[in-house]
């Protein structure tokens, strides 16, 4: 399989009140095309920072991050924005959407901004509606964002992340603000998207969410302490088994 993301000696340092805080220390890992990777770790271990630096949303202090063989550490802000728009998708814990737009308008917004997406406005709207239909939220297309539930909104955020046919989706605790039912629905959708070929990298605290992934990276104090491969389980049907084995591994890691 082809490598989509390669991280080499990634360091991230914040300076707060003249004090240096090394959040990421020489992090190395790779993600291959079609994988679904979860990043787990205790609070403050650098999970979200890792996600934002490898996705080009935050500046890298040192090291290299190759996305499709392009070193994003060397790219300008403009080039990074272009990659985020056309080749990456993002899902946040809080369901951020523009308050003045309807759900459908929020979803197609990145498509309308993209120059690489050459489809007509009509086709973009059609694709947005198809995505909503697929994720079971077509009935809220014209709704205001304060008229829908958190689960529906998060699925709408997933639709938005998919609208420009990204190579990879980054999700920062996508189920963190949802109840169990909504959380399971959202994860099922992400798993489906992954099955259809889109790589997913997500940060989570939830073993049930991580168990749906193909691989889990465990990060402590800015270092990848270990990784656990769930590929040996062929289907999600063996979810309980996956959760148990992952739990055991995490216990070994000090979770």
């Amino acid at each position: 399989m082809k490598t989509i993301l390669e991280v080499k000696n990634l360091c991230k340092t914040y300076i707060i009140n003249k004090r240096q805080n090394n959040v990421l220390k020489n992090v190395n890992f790779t993600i291959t095309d079609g994988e679904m990777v979860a990043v787990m770790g205790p609070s403050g271990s650098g999970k979200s920072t890792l996600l934002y630096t490898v996705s080009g949303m935050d500046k890298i202090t040192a090291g290299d991050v190759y996305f499709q063989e392009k070193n994003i550490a060397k790219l300008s802000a403009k080039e990074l924005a272009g990659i985020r728009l056309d080749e990456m998708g993002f899902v946040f814990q809080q369901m951020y959407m523009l308050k003045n737009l309807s759900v459908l308008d929020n979803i197609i917004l990145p498509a309308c901004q993209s120059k690489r997406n050459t489809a007509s406005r009509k086709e973009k709207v059609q694709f947005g509606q198809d995505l909503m239909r697929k994720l079971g939220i077509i009935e809220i297309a014209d709704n205001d964002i304060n008229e829908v539930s958190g689960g529906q909104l998060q699925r709408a955020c997933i639709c938005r992340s998919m609208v420009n046919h990204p190579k990879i989706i980054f999700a920062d605790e996508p189920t963190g603000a949802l109840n169990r039912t909504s959380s399971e629905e959202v994860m099922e959708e992400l798993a489906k998207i992954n099955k259809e070929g889109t790589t997913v990298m997500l940060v989570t605290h939830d073993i049930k969410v991580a168990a749906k992934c193909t691989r889990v990276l465990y990060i402590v104090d800015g270092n990848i302490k270990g990784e656990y491969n769930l590929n040996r389980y062929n289907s999600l049907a063996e979810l309980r088994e996956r959760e148990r084995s992952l739990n055991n591994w995490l216990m070994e890691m000090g979770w």
Partner: protein
Amino acid sequence: MYLQILKKDLRRKKTMNMILLIFIILAATFIACSANNMLSVTTALDSFFEKAEVPDYWFCTTGKKEVEKYEHLAKENQYDFCQQEFIQIDPKNVKVNPGKREGREFQYSKSVCMSQLKDSTKLFDKNDKVIEEVKKGEIYLTADLFRNSPDHFKIGDEITITNGGKTRTFHIKGGMKDAMFGSSMLGMTKFLVSGEDYRYFNDENVSKFYSVMTYTEDGKFLERFNKLELNLFFSVNRSGLQTIYIMDMVTAAVMLVVSICLILISMVILRFTINFTMSEEFREIGVMKAIGICNPKIRGLYITKYFAVSVVGGITGFFLSIPFGKLLLQNLSQNIILPDSSNYFINLVCAFSVVVIVLLFCYFCTGKIKRFSPIDAIRNGENGERYSRKGIIHLNKSRFPAVLFLACNDILSNIRRFAAMLVIFTLGILLIIIPINTINTLKSDKLLSWFSMAESDHVISVEQLFDTNCNNRAFVEDTLEEVKGKLSDKGIKADVFQEIMFRTNISYKGKRMSSLSTQGAGGVTTDMYTYLEGSAPQNNNEVGISHIVSDTVGAKIGDTVTIRNGETERQYMVTAIYQTMNNMGEGIRFYQGEDLDYTYAAGSFGIQVKYTDNPDKKELEERKEMLKDFFPDDKVFTPGEYIGYMIGGDVVTKIQDIKHLILAVILCINTLVTVLMVKSFLTKEKGEIAMLKALGFQNSSLVVWQALRIGLILFFATILAALLSTPLSQVSIGPVFRIMGAQNITFEIIPLEVYVLYPVIVLCVTVLAGAMTATQIRKISASEASRGE
């Protein structure tokens, strides 16, 4: 604890608190200086007339017999009056700095008179001190002439006057503020010399006129005075004299409009800022309520904070208002004495009012605290806004690019948020459009008809000063023939004509008045003038009358009036009503064939030339130069230039100066408002901006989004201002023209200048300010999308 929260709040929300402080300073400055200026401007003429001891009635006549007739009436009715003698001087006999390198002809071609201090009203120097003495060899010029003449007079310059075969050289002592002769609208300027110098020139051979000033409150004075049917070339009552200063009041009116707009802008800014900053506090209010702090204490905390900020802003605004007010007033007329504006009590009251207004706004805004439950405040009111409805336009149905759509949608879905900006920008554009319309109207050729002159291509400033002893008719006819002959020699066909003014008295059904009349001499017919109603006089016994004359004597079209010209009294039928700004709206137009007694001709306008071969613009320019060569001692104008010259060319310059000042002030206000508002928006929309960045929107796209919103608001403001400009011009400046006698006013609007050029200048500067401020978007990281709004 209380103080701790306050200190931390001031430090933590530095940007918003600074924005609030700056806006309070702005509001206090504008309100304080505008209120003071408004008071100065509206009371200026009354206070000036009071100080100068201006009479209740004033008339001028060249006939000593007329004065004697009046003396009889005045003594009979015990009217308090005084008379002053003036020597008339031909401006061509005045030389400036003769014999010196910078020596030149006197650049003034209207009437000039000379007088002494004896029997004069009070005259003031440039420091508003009463002129008590003029020494031999010294001369004072009217302030308007001293300051605005193309001669660029300086104190100490020499002026040589030759009159009646006598010559004397004077040293200019300065400009004087003269309530009677101070306005350029009077069409006459005055030299003030010492009694000895005056006596030197005064002998039987020189042309003189007499000014008679009466102080009376007798209601029957006018009736008795009109019955005398004196031959006067000028008569006016005190309120009429005020209207002579109307052009100075045009600038004052513009200043008033500016002041009112600035106050409105300040109020809008204050309301917006307080609402905006208060809405930022809602989440904290929720938290405080949740931990059990009671409502009055929370309210008290914010009121204390706003009190501190508003006191600092109010004091700073008070001090800034003093120089800013002076800056605005310095362009106002220097012909009159403004009431003492160094009394800054008004500024202080206004600055204090701003503090009170801020606290009241704050008090009412914090009233919401009571209505919200803690969780409401935390959840819904984190920005104080409730989202009751989504945008009214849809991206999925629109063809707009995403960024343009976002800008439009933001405005349409939250109009209240941008309303403050819209109001400020609209007022700003209006402030620019109204003076420009006024200037263009004053400069336009259409004013020629408002001065009851026929259309022409050029005007030569050969205004006649008629002598009662000469054959005036032959003199006029010869002069016109001479001009026509010179043009004809060059192969140019043209009608050459001149407006001659006569001293007449008109009566109708017992009502009478004295009014200047006009008759076209040379190649002009009555149908070449513009009338409001009726048709041009076609026979010798027909006249047109101005609507002021019509209103005064009560004569309408079809009525027969009696008009006395010298010793002759005839009946005339009124065939037309017209408007004129000449002689404050009073006028009678005779048919060109009517035989009027030129002995009673009072004067004339310039010689008008109307080419009959339709020359193009370039040819007209060449012919203007040619006329200048023919008449090197006179000035040659286009009709628009001539009107500017008649009403005092400096008025246009003055308004033009004010226009530039207003443009600068508006650009500064717009820039400041835009910078502060965009900064506020960035603070508030940080989360959305971070999210859009995370989605892949480039910094440049986001800057364009922010700038487009400003641009669109300004665009709507321009449309709104364009729609409002005509009615508001009529309301604010129209009365000034109406006082002068123009009833039917259509403002000269140059669309390219008014609706394109200036709005584009404002748009460019404002949008640039918005875009520059919005570049701070670069500092917002995409990863901040994860940290909450």
